[in-house]
C-alpha cells in the first residue's frame, strides 16, 4: 500500500490519468505541483520504511518509459522538468535508504531548471528552448547554468544526482530486475538531458531574437543553488567514503 502511495506521489500516473487529459493546469503549475508531490513522497518514504513490491516497480518503470516517450517530444523546459520526475519515479520506489538524498538532489536540479524556464518565459515569451538555440555564444551565463543543471540530471559527477545514484546502487540490496530498472533510468536521464542540452545550447544564434543574459541578482541565485548542489554532493560523497 505504501509503495503505491509513493508511486502515485512521485510517478506520472496521476498526471497522465488526470492532469494531462483534462488540461487542468499549465506546464509551470504542473511542474510546481509535481515537485510538491515529490517532496511529499520523500517525506513519506522517510517516515515509513516502504516495502517495495515488484508490481510497483514494474508500474513505475512503465510510467517512466511513457514519460521518456513524451519528454522526447517536448522542447519546453517546464514540461521537461516534470517528465524528468516521472522518469525517476522507479528510483524512489527502489532506493529505500538514501532515496531522500537522491530526491533532494533531483529537486535542486529541477529548481534550477524551473528558474531557467521562468527566465525563458519572461524574456522570450515561452519556456520553449528550441527556437532560442545557440545561447552558448550569445548568453554564456545562462548557458553555463543550463549546462550544470542538465549535466546533473544526466547523472554526471560532481553533481549530487550522480553521487546519490551511486550511493544507492552501492549500498542498496538490488536484485537483477532492479538493477535493470536502475540502468534504464540511468540512460533515460542521460538521453533526455543531453538532447535538451544539445538543442538549447548549440547551433547558430537566432538573428531575430534579442538575447538577454542573466542579471547579477539572477546569477547570484543560480550560484547559491549550484553551491547547494555541491554541498549535497559532498555530503553524499562522505557517505560513500564512510
Amino acid at each position, binding site marked *: 500500500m505504501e509503495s503505491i502511495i509513493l508511486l502515485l506521489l512521485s510517478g506520472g500516473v496521476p498526471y497522465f490519468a488526470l492532469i494531462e487529459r483534462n488540461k487542468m493546469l499549465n506546464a509551470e503549475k504542473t511542474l510546481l505541483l509535481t515537485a510538491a508531490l515529490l517532496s511529499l513522497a520523500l517525506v513519506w518514504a522517510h517516515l515509513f520504511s516502504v516495502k517495495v513490491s515488484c508490481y510497483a516497480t514494474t508500474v513505475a518503470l512503465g510510467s517512466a518509459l511513457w514519460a521518456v516517450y513524451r519528454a522526447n517530444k517536448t522542447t519546453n523546459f517546464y514540461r521537461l522538468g516534470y517528465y524528468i520526475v516521472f522518469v525517476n519515479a522507479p528510483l524512489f520506489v527502489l532506493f529505500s535508504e538514501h532515496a531522500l538524498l537522491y530526491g533532494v538532489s533531483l529537486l535542486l536540479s529541477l529548481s534550477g531548471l524551473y528558474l531557467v524556464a521562468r527566465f525563458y518565459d519572461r524574456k522570450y515569451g515561452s519556456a520553449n528552448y528550441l527556437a532560442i538555440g545557440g545561447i552558448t*555564444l550569445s548568453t554564456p551565463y545562462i548557458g553555463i547554468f543550463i549546462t550544470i543543471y542538465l*549535466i546533473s540530471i544526466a547523472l554526471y559527477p560532481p553533481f549530487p544526482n550522480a553521487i546519490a545514484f551511486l550511493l544507492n546502487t552501492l549500498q542498496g540490496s538490488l536484485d537483477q530486475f532492479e538493477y535493470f530498472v536502475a540502468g534504464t533510468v540511468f*540512460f533515460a536521464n542521460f538521453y533526455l538531458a543531453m538532447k535538451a542540452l544539445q538543442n538549447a*545550447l548549440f547551433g547558430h544564434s537566432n538573428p531575430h531574437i534579442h538575447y538577454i543574459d542573466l542579471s547579477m541578482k539572477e546569477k547570484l541565485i543560480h550560484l547559491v543553488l549550484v553551491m547547494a548542489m555541491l554541498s549535497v554532493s559532498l555530503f553524499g560523497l562522505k557517505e560513500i567514503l564512510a
Partner: protein
Amino acid sequence: MENFILCIPGIPIVIALLLIFINKKEFIPKVSLTLSALIAVLALFGSYLVIRHDLSITGFGGLVIYNELSAILVPYVAILGLVIRKYASKYMWDEAGYKRFFVLLNFIFAAIYLLVMSNHLIVLAIAWQLMSIGLYLLVSFNVGSKTAVKNAKWTMYIHKGADFVFMLAVILLYKEFGSFDLSTLSQTWLKMASDPVSNPTIVMIGFLFLAAAMMKSAIVPFHIWLPYTSEAPTPVSALMHAGVVNVGGILLNKLAFLLLLTPVVLNVAFAIGLFTAIFASILMLAVPDIKRSLGYSTVGQMGYMIMEVGLGAFSLAIYHLIVHGIFKATLFLESGGLIHYARRDPNIPERVSYKLFWESNTEYKSSNTYYLIALFTVVPLLIFAGVKMFLSEEFFEFNAAIVILAFGWLTGTQLFLSFFKVSKADSIKVIVALVTTFLLIILTYEFIGLTLEHFIYGEHALLFYQAATLNVTFAMAVIILIVILVVGWLFMYKQHFSETDKSVTVPDRARWAFYRTVAHEGFVFGLLNRLRKGKK
C-alpha cells in the same frame, strides 16, 4: 611540501575558476600557462621524490596517490598540457569562446590528473565520468557546426556506455571484495594470484573493466567516435589523441593485479587488440580523408596498446601510449605551422628530410635496394636478439619480445613504404636512415620496456606474463616473427620489385569484397545510417 604534490588535480580547477573572473583576454593564457607550468614543476618534483626515495606519496585519506605510475604519467600529462595551452593561446585567439575553451581545457586536465592519481575506485569513477563530459563539451566547442555537434553526440553516447559499464564493474567489485581502496585491493589480488581460484564474478568484473577501457580507447567496435571528431579545434584533437584515448590503458594498468586473476580477459584483450591494430591500420591506409586517416592511426595504436596488455606487458603499454601521444600531438600541433609555410611557399616546405630525400630524381625500382634493406633489417635484428639472449636469461620470459619485434618490423615496414615513394630510394642515405630508425625503435622499446617494468611493478612484473596464458615461448616467438618477416618481405617484393603483368586488372571477387569493406570503413557507418533512416 610532499603533500602539496597531491593538490595537482585541484590546480587546473583553480585555474578554471580564476579564468571565469578574468575579463581581459590577454591575461587568460598568461594565468593558464603560469599555473600549468607550476603543475609541471610539481609533477617533476613528485617524480624525483618517488624515484629518489622509492616511496609513494598518499594523502586526502588515501584517496589520491603519487606512486610509480603517477611519477611517469603526471609529468607527461603536465608537459603535454603546457604545450597544448601554449599552442592554443595563439591558435584559438580569434575563435569565439576563447575563455570557455581554456576553462573547459583546464577542467578536462583536472579530470585526467585525478584519474591518474586516484587511489580509490570512487575517485576513479568520478574522474572517469568527468572526462566524458569534459570531452563532450570540448568536441562540440564549435557550436555552430552541425556535424561537430552530431559527432560530439556520438562521442558522448559511447563514453556514457563506458561510464555505465565502469560503474557496474565498481559495484560488483565492491560487493565481491568489500573495499574501494586500490592499494588494499592490489595487495588482496596479489595474494589471490598465488593461489588462483576460478570465480565467475571476478572474471565478469575483469570483462566489464576491459569493455570500459575499450570504449574510452576507441577499440573496435567502439572506435566510431574517434575518426570523426577531428572537427574539434586542433589543440583538442591533440589532447584527444595524446591524452584522452590513453585512459583505457591507464585504467588497465591501475587494475593490473586484478587482471592477474583473469587470464581469459587478458586473452580476449590480446585478440581484440590484434584485430583492432590490423583493421584500423588497413583503414588508415584506405580512407581518403587525412583527418580520418589520423583517427584510424590512433585507433590502430590503441589496438596495439591493448594487445600489449593482453600479453602481460602492462608497462610496455604505458610506454607505448606516451610515445604515441607525443608523436600524435606533434603531428596535430605541427599541422598549423605546415599550412602556414605552405601558404607562403607553393612547394613543399624545405626541411632537412626534404633536402635529404627529395631533391633529385633517380631510378629507384631495383631489386638491389630490396635485398639491401631486407638484409640490413633482418640481420641486425637477429644479432640483437642473439646478444640479448646471451646476456639475459630474463629475455626468455619477457614475452613482450614478440610484440617489440613485430612492432619494430611493422614500423620499419611503414618507414620503408613511406620512403619507397621518395625519389632517392636507391640512395644509401635512405637505407641508413631506415635501418638506424628500425634499430633505434627496437633498442628503445627493449630498454625502456624493461626499465619501466622494473620501476612500476618491480618483482611482480613477471607474474603478468605467467597470467597471460597466450604466453608464447621465445622459440615460438622467433618462429612466428620469422614467418611474419618472410611473408611480409615476399609480399613487398611481389608488390614493388617483381615484374607484374599489368594487363590483368580485374581483381578476383574476394579481393574486391575486401576492398569494398575497407573502402566503406567496415560498413559500420553505413549500418548506423541505415538504422537511423529506418527509424525515421
